């Protein structure tokens, strides 16, 4: 039931090259999209997908190559020109003004006015309501962006493009922030749009979403065009291999679990967020040796506050945390790390995981710099530090293998390897991994998952917090679902039903 009209080529990008200095981000990429087609762009992080669509949306100018829109060769100098040509883009990080209403965001730059530039909000609201009804994008035009869900915000972004008469919609990693239910809604929206004759370009590295929604898929690897395939004729495995350039294993290889004694217990924990509202509100959880406990949930249900409370970064307002029966509630971060040996892979590796201006070696000893041999009578022993870093770059496969490089010059995957090296090499009793694969590509994800499983197999406890349901289901032994600061259900990962968890994540009862 595809709606493709093969007689009409809407977008043609021919031999597009984009260079940044000496770096070739796009090397002769070809892309053809027909009317009514959903075309996915697949590639690892840094492969050049976003660069390519930025060329199409006028944010970059291609160094070489041609772009045709509806058969006409065009120069797209800026987003305005792209909008004129009927191209709309939904950015990965939403481009919405939080303090504005839905309507204000949609009309910004194309305001409906009465005379003298006075806004005509009533007319705009009517128009927004019309479009949202026509394409099945449920939204209240008067809501403020800061009050609505991420899924709704995404609909506002799509409406923004439709309001400007977009024929071609570019969606950059649209599902990264959505719940499974919201993803299903998005799929429906995409189907509606193609029925109405719109063409969609969707950037993603989630293979089953491509299988579900896309007609064609163009694979880019390290800036090079690999192939365009008909999605129905390939398997996910084949797509992954084309993307990475080698065989990839999806299934996380795990030995049978050797579950040990209880090590960490959280009882009736209450933690307040920055606004003083209880973000974690009576949470109970136990963690055992030799297990990976996954916490599934939509962003903003208290995950960050839970991790901050466990690591001593945030005050506990009520309840207790015990480690091997010993109360550790209210410990300072340093105690948590050095005394209780609880280590953390933080959710934001650039803000909390690494000092971006420090080099790899310095980042590796952030928690142990004061111990021998790194520090002798208050002076750092640089020989030992760099020797240790050399060792770590080998063992943990940090590339490039140069301990003098600053953290910010590494790729996301290698930054994460530095953090894992630092946290795991101290043999922690409990490893807290918060969003450990966020923004990483398939290869790096595989590495992180293996590291977590290794900890478990060595009889240590791992607490995994992730917004990616797939990840939680693949890696964990048990899955706890967090909703509004409480654990609303705990299930065994073996034989678990995705829909059941998805429902709990959204606050429903299974």
């Amino acid at each position, binding site marked *: 039931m595809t709606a493709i009209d093969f007689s009409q080529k809407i977008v043609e990008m021919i031999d597009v090259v984009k260079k940044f200095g000496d770096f070739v981000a796009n090397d002769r990429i070809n892309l053809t999209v027909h009317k009514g087609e959903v075309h996915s762009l697949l590639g690892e992080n840094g492969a050049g997908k976003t660069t390519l669509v930025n060329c199409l949306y006028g944010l970059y100018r291609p160094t070489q190559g041609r772009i045709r829109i509806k058969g006409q060769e065009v120069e797209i100098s800026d987003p305005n020109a792209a909008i004129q040509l009927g191209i709309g883009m939904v950015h990965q990080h939403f481009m919405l003004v939080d*303090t504005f209403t839905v309507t204000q965001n949609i009309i910004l730059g194309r305001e409906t006015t009465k005379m003298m*530039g006075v806004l005509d909000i009533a007319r705009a609201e009517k128009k927004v309501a019309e479009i949202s009804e026509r394409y099945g994008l449920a939204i209240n035009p008067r809501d403020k962006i800061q009050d609505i869900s991420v899924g709704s915000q995404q609909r506002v972004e799509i409406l923004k493009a439709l309001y400007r008469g977009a024929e071609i919609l570019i969606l950059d990693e649209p599902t990264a922030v959505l719940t499974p239910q919201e993803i299903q809604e998005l799929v429906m929206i995409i189907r509606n749009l193609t029925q109405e004759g719109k063409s969609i370009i969707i950037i993603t590295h989630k293979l089953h979403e491509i299988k579900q929604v896309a007609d064609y898929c163009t694979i880019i690897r390290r800036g090079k065009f690999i192939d365009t395939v008909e999605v129905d004729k390939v398997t996910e495995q084949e797509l992954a291999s084309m993307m990475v350039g080698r065989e990839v294993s999806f299934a996380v290889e795990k030995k049978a679990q050797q579950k040990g004694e209880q090590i960490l217990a959280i009882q009736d924990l209450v933690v307040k967020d920055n606004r003083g509202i209880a973000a974690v509100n009576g949470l109970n959880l136990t963690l055992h040796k030799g297990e990976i406990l996954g916490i599934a949930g939509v962003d903003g249900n208290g995950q960050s506050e839970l991790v901050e409370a466990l690591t001593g970064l945030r005050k506990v307002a009520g309840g207790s945390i015990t480690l091997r029966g010993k109360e550790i509630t209210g410990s300072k971060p340093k105690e948590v790390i050095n005394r209780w040996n609880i280590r953390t892979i933080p959710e934001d590796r650039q803000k909390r995981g690494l000092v971006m201006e420090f080099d790899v070696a310095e980042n590796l000893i952030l928690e142990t710099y004061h111990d021998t041999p790194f520090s002798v009578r208050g002076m750092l022993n640089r020989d030992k530090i760099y020797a240790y870093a050399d060792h770590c770059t080998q063992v943990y496969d940090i590339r490039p293998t140069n301990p003098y490089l600053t953290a910010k010059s590494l790729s996301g995957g290698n930054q994460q390897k530095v953090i894992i090296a630092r946290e795991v090499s101290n043999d922690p009793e409990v490893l807290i991994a918060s969003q450990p694969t966020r923004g990483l590509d398939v290869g790096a994800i595989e590495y992180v998952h293996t590291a977590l499983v290794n900890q478990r197999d060595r009889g240590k406890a791992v607490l995994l917090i992730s917004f990616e349901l797939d990840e939680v289901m693949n890696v964990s032994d048990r899955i706890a679902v967090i909703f509004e600061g409480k654990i609303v259900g705990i299930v065994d990962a073996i034989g678990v039903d995705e829909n059941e968890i998805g429902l709990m994540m959204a606050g429903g009862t299974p």
Partner: protein
Amino acid sequence: MEAIIKDMGFIIGTTLMYSTPLMFTSLGGVITERSGVVNIGLEGMMFFGAFVGATVAYYSQSPWLGFVCAGLGGALLGLIHAIACVSFAAEQIVSGIAINFLGSGFALFLSRLFFDGATQTLTIPKKIPLPFSFLFGEGKLFQSAGFMDLVFNRFATVYLAFFLVAVVWFVLYKTKIGMRVQAVGEHPEAADTLGINVYRIRYGAVMTSGFFAGLGGAAMSIAVVSRFSNTLISGHGFIALAAMIFGKWKPQGAMLACLLFGGAKGVEIYLGAKGFPVPSSLLAMLPYILTIIVLVGVVGKTTPPAAIGRIFDKSGK
């Protein structure tokens, strides 16, 4: 009883008079900061405006010409600030500090040049008029030097300031350009992707803020008093800045905050005139102490525009 009413009238009248210059400047602050550009150079712009206003009014004998030129003088400094912060991505605080030195230094330099080496201008021949005098003179509708006279027989700039509060509110919240200014101050990247020229909006906002601060300076030098001197502005620009923050970056809020600070000045003058047994220099500290108390009291509860002080650089993408 009558004396108390008259005293009240005196305090309210002085409050209005002293709030007005703050209000112009504070409105300027609202405009620039809502577009995302911090402008602590308001003090220097006000200072320069006070000088330009008095000088032009002195030579041209037209207070209104002086008033408008004061605004243009402030806008000129605004242009410098915009070039530094918007085009060249300079640190906004540093540029603002430089503007403060530049504004006062330039004004004093010109003052010495025009007025025989004096750091003050000569008394202007005509001040800003009192538009409602016809109602308050002897034998007119209201009693001269009565309550109504003290409160409502004020310089035209007083009425203009309140009118501009309404205008800025309307433009900011009800018009296309106002919505764009807010968008640029909250999320410049979003505005940019919708084809709005962030640089142009910020240039406009910063220059308008300079214009308003210049008007505020002139409202001091050619309405409240009748000459410019080097101690005339002494921190009013900073108080206006504080009022803007205290007023939560809203024109109506800034207006109320300015009235509060003006009120402190009104009380100070009243107590001074009554021979209240406190040294006048201590009384003169009242508005400044109030500024600190108020800011300490409300800091943390206000939300500034999200992109404030953040450099927007299109070429960096």
